[in-house]
Structures are given as C-alpha cells and as structure tokens.
C-alpha cells in the first residue's frame, strides 16, 4: 500500500523547506521512523523520519529543490499492503482510513485521523507505546495531499476562472509560481501545450550545478546567477558581479543555512549599531576548581565538566544586575525580558546554529551543564526543534574553542548583546605589584548602542568578571 511522504511543517511560520539530502534510494527498504531525508528550512536543518516501514518506491522531489509544506516528496510502498498491486492513482491515503492491521479489532473509521501523527513531530523521540487498541498506525495516513483534489492546489482567482473556462483540472497543471502555485503563466502553457502526463511539482533544477572556470584568463564571461536556490533579496546587494569573476575559480551554491546566516548577519549589522567592549578575567580559581573536581563530577553525574556553565552562570548574574542587557528593541519600545534565555553559538561542520538554553536562570550548575551538552549534541546531529533555536534574550559565543584570543561577534537578533569568550590562556599579569602567572580569558561584549550605553556594558562585563574571579557556587 503506497504511503505518501510529505514535506513537514517544521514550525509555525514556516511554509516551505528544501530537501538537502536523500538518505535512501528508490528501491531501498526503510523502517518506520528511520531517517529518510534531510531538510533545511527557515529555522533549522533536520532529519525527517519515514512515516511507515516499506520500500521507498519513488522520490518526487530531488535534492536542492524547495517545496511548500505538505507537498508529497516521496512514496513508500508500505509493508502489509499488496505491494505488487499498482498504486491507485487518485484517492489519497488521507482520504480513507488506513486498513486495520491484522489483529486490530475493527476501529471505527472516524478514529483513523486521531492516530494521525505528523512526521514533523515524529522527529522527537519515538512515540510512546500506544494505548490498548493496537493502532493501525503502521501505515499512518499522510496528511491531505497537495494535489489530490482541486481545493488544495494553490492558485489564484484568475487561474480558477481560466480552469473553469477551459474545463481543466487544476490538480493536473504543474505549478511554477511561488511555493508551487499554479499561475497564469502555467495555465497558458497548459492550454497551449496540453497537460503533461506526469507533472513535476516544481520547475527548479534538481540541484544547482557547480560552475568552474577554465584557466583561460580570456573567460571573462559572468556566469548566470545561481538557480535552484532560495530567493533572498537581502543577499542581492553586493559588488558588481563582473568584479567577482576573474582568473581561476570554482563556484559552489550556498546552502540554505549559509544563506540564512548571511542574511541574518547582514540584517543585524544593518539594524544594530554595534559597539564593542573588552574586559579580561582571571579564571585561575575556576581552572583550579575544575581540575580538582572534574573526575568526581563526571563520576557522580555521568557528564563531562566544561568551562561553559561557569560563563553562562556569570552572564546570567550580569544580566540580572543589568536588565538592559537582557532586552530587545521594538521601534521606540525597549522590551525587557523577564526570562534569561541564553543563546549559545554552536559551530557545525556545515555552518552555525544558536540553540537556546531556556530559563537558564532557573537551572542549577548541573542543569546548565546538561542543557549545554544536550543542545550542542542535538545541534550537531540535526535533532533540534525550531522552538529550540528561538526566543533567546542574550547570546554567548566562544571563539576561544578554536584558540582565538578574542572575537568581536555580531549580535544575534533580536538581542541587544552578545558575549564572546576568548581562549583560557596562562599569561604573566601584575598581582599586588608582582608579576604572576595566571589563567586569563578575554571577555568581549558586542552591544546595540541604540539600547545599551558603554557605562552599562562595562559594568555588565565587570559583573561577569567578578562572578568568575570570586566563584562561590557549589557545583558538585
């Protein structure tokens, strides 16, 4: 029995997603909830699990293509169905309840939708054991398909009128407008050329090919703009294109995440007048403390002890003392956040994410360490939910992990400040008129001068420094 695989909605305001990778090939067997493909949306990258076990029959949307949510991206020939029978063309799985599993005591048909679980949510840990009634979820019906009836096809009043006048079925017309919408252009093409037998859902090429230059200096031709990528007006600004291409080069399309980062960074620099302050803290005490109790901490809690929770705690104390740093700007209103949600920059091989430790002020030291490790791990394994990268009130970034002495970060909007941590490094410093060797770290703060003045910023940094230098919290 064929089961449609759809592009899930990965967050409230998300309307489309890009398939970045298929993890299975047509003909391969897939288990229910086994990762089937990777997507990239406005908010996160994620692995999408298969909605049913069976054989991946057909991939309808290729890697690199962006499609609206609820678009059918693949079909799985689910186990238990008549695998050899040709798939019924029209009535969608969603329109009817899935056939009950062999042992199922005839569930009322209306119940079927109740068992429907959107694949988006299935990205979370596997569903809890289902209550008494053996649910017919093995072949859970996919949500309403985009193109199984005319109502679901995105079009326009004009397109619907044209369809009426020409007696055409809109579901059969391939849409090339925004989000696969059927536009006037598509209708004119369909009227002129007749309807194609099997309509592709989007016109974008399978994947944007990379372009390489020849070594010839004469190749001064500017290549055509990248195709198949998302449309990002903010990124259109830049130097004249002809100044970019010369000599030998290779062109690679940006990933969706890369485009998003570029867009966000550009917007942040555009909207926030950044000012930078630098402070240094003597963390010899913390280094000694960590060295002393690190193994006990690990034994007791089964988790590694890092420096990060110390800095997060220090930042929270700083934010408590200077609420102006824990704010956002809305026009002429300053929004003072009452929670302390600390965004934490996590470097990935393929980009950067800022997962958020929600209500960090309510966590004890162990809780902070757990949250930090959990978010970082799941960022690296693409298991974050959209809400876990949203609603930060302040952010911390750590160029020190790569040995950077200090960095001047770009503010993570809509925050008004971001704390940069340099590498912890032994340095000669003057202590009581003597030169001593101490473990030092540079703390940098980028802040939005529309909201935060230097006086507040430096006092905030000083507070962070003093919490680090005079550490009192019991961490075991």
């Amino acid at each position, binding site marked *: 029995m064929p089961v449609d695989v759809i592009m899930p909605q990965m967050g409230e305001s998300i309307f489309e997603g890009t398939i970045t990778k298929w993890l299975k090939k047509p003909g391969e067997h897939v288990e229910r909830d086994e990762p089937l493909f990777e997507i990239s949306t406005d908010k996160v990258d994620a692995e999408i699990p298969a909605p049913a076990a069976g054989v991946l029959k057909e991939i309808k949307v290729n890697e690199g293509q962006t499609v609206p949510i609820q678009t059918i991206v693949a079909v799985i020939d689910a186990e238990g169905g008549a695998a050899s029978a040709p798939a019924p063309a029209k009535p969608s799985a969603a329109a009817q309840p899935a056939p009950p599993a062999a042992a199922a005591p005839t569930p009322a048909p209306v119940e079927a939708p109740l068992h429907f679980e959107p694949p988006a949510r299935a990205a979370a840990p596997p569903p809890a054991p289902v209550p008494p009634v053996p649910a017919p979820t093995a072949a859970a019906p996919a949500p309403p398909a985009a193109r199984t009836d005319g109502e679901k096809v995105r079009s*326009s*009043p004009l397109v619907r009128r044209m369809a009426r006048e020409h007696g055409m079925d809109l579901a059969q017309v391939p849409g090339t407008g925004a989000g696969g919408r059927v536009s006037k252009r598509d209708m004119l093409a369909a009227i002129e050329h007749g309807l194609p037998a099997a309509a592709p859902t989007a016109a974008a090429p399978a994947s944007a090919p990379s372009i390489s230059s020849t070594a010839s200096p004469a190749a001064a031709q500017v290549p055509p703009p990248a195709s198949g990528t998302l449309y990002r007006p903010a990124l259109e600004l830049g130097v004249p294109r002809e100044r970019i291409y010369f000599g030998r080069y290779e062109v690679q399309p940006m990933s969706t995440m890369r485009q998003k980062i570029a867009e966000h960074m550009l917007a942040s620099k555009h909207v926030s007048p950044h000012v930078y302050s630098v402070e240094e803290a003597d963390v010899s005490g913390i280094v000694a403390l960590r060295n002393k109790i690190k193994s006990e901490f690990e034994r007791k809690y089964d988790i590694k002890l890092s420096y990060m929770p110390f800095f997060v705690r220090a930042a929270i104390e700083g934010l408590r003392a200077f609420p102006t740093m824990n704010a956002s700007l809305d026009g002429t209103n300053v929004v003072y956040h009452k929670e302390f949600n600390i965004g934490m920059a996590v470097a990935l091989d393929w980009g950067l994410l800022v997962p958020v430790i929600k209500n960090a002020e309510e966590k004890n030291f162990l809780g902070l360490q757990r949250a930090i490790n959990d978010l970082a791990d799941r960022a690296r394994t693409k298991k974050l939910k959209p809400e876990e990268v949203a609603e930060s009130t302040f952010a911390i970034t750590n160029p020190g992990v790569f040995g950077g002495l200090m960095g001047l970060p770009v503010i993570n909007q809509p925050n008004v400040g971001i704390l940069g941590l340099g590498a912890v490094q032994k340095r000669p410093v003057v202590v009581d008129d003597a030169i001593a060797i101490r473990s030092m770290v540079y703390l940098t703060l980028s802040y939005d001068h529309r909201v935060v003045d230097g006086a507040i910023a430096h006092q905030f940094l000083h507070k962070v420094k003093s919490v680090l230098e005079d550490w009192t919290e019991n961490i075991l």
Partner: protein
Amino acid sequence: MALVTLLEAIRQALFEEMQRDPAVVCIGEDIGVYGGAFKVTAGLLERFGWERVIDTPISETAIIGAACGMSYLGLRPVCELQFVDFIACCFNQLTNFVAKSYYLWGAPVPMVVRAPSGGGVHGGPFHSQNPEMYFAHTPGLKIVYPSTAYDAKGLMKSAIRDNNPVLFFEHKFLYRRIKDEIPAGDYTVPLGKAALRREGRDVSIVTYAAMTHNCMDAAAELAKEGIEAEVLDLRTIMPLDKEAILASVKKTNRLLVVHEDTKFGGIAGEIAAVVFEEAFDDLDAPVRRVTALDTPVPYSPPLEERFLPQVEDVVRAARELARY
C-alpha cells in the same frame, strides 16, 4: 515648444485663465508683492492688480472662508496655501461647507485650493505631508495631483473651469525638477482620467504625483530583468479613474499600488478594494502596496529617505509580484 518646469506650467495656467476669465482671482499669503512662497504667482500682481491678486493675513481659515464667499458671488477664486500641511486649519470649512454647499443649498463653489505638498525636500513633519486622503473621503471635493508639467497646466485649467471645489496638490519636489515641452496656446487635461505612462504585460503599477517618476525608473530597471511593468499615473485621486485601473489589471492580472502617502487609509487600500470587488476573477496574485511608512515625515534626511518609497522598493515588490 519650450521646456517648462512644473512650477512655470502652473503659473502659465493661472496667467492664461486670469486673462481669459475676469472672474478668476488669486488669494493667499504673500502671493502678491512677494510672488508666493515658491514664486508660483510671481508677476501676477503686476499684470492683474491687487484686486485680483489678494495678499491675506496668516490665516488659512480666512483664505478659504473668503474664497467660499467669493464663489457665492460669482467669482472663481484660486487659493494658495503656503504648505498643504496647514490645510488642516480649514478642515471644517472645506469638508462641511465647501464640499456640501451645492448639495445643501444648490450653491456651487467653483474654487481651487492650490497647495505645495509632498516630501523629499527635508521639510520635516509640518512641511512634507500628503493629506489628500482626508479630503478624498469627503464627497463633494475633487482632488488633483499631477506628476508632469504638461498635466499640471492642463489640469489647472480644467480645475479652474470646473464648477466643483478642487484641491490641487503641487508636489514641491517636482516644482523645478520636472520639465516638459508645452505646446503654445490653450489646452486642458480632463479631471478623472489617468494616464498610461508605460505599457507592460507582467504587472500593473498604479501611482501618482512624485512616485510616478520612481515607478518609471523602477519599470526601466525591471525591463532589464525581462519584467514588463505597466505604469498608470492617476493624475486625479477624486474622481478615481476606475476604468483605467481595471483595464490594466485585466491585462496584467497583477497590481502594485505605489504612493507617497502613508499606508493606512491611503488610496492604495481603496484601489485594492475596487479591484477585489470588480476584478477578483482577474487577479493572479494578491494586490500589493508600496507606500510611505505609517509615521510622521522624519526631518533627518536619511530617515526621510527610509520613510519614502524608493525605486528599489518598487522594483523589489514588482519583481516579487511578477514571480508570484
């Protein structure tokens, strides 16, 4: 034919109409000896004398009240407000008396209220506004807002000859920047008729006044990308040329309305409603608006630039519509 500025075109219209019809008189602050804040009326006093070119005290209320009275006695007064922003002072007279006079008492008020308007000249919140919609909302008033020198002259003549009260907005940014070849001799441009400034098949841009020029620049940019935008210059806000708007929408199926007025309650919303009511089945995309921000006009030049719709804003919106 000579190249004439928009400002000079209006002066020509006033001069020729005063010459043609002795009932036409001008009244306003400093329009006589000084020649007007922007020098539109320079030379009229010398030619027509103080009885027909009347300097008033600094009271917009006095100007409109006097002109209304003159109208009742058979004259055709042309009032000048130094800046249209101060038209708020005579709101009651214009909306309650001038606009309703003929309806209530059968007494026509064939007056014209001329007023420099619009932004882009760093005039700040009291000298840059576009208050046309306060008056478009009041039945009984006609509202003209030209974008070219040729139209300014022809529309001014039509306004003076019209038996209804006409508010004539003169965009001060265009006063000396826009020059047209103007034919010698008498001609008029009818009220209530839009002008098709550029033909296109992909998206209709409906606009008026200074934004017409931004939209023309935008259309030229769009053409480089292969998007053919049609640009319709309304010229008259009231009566609105629905026929021309609907014809263009039926052709391109996509509508962008651009104006320098603020967004909320601007004519763009009204035009969108007309199109939804009368051409819904012709729309292939939602109607979009590019307008000034819903704030007072900022004083600071960079802020004002952000406040006013720019060519690139129009290009972006039209491009998105064309790709919708």
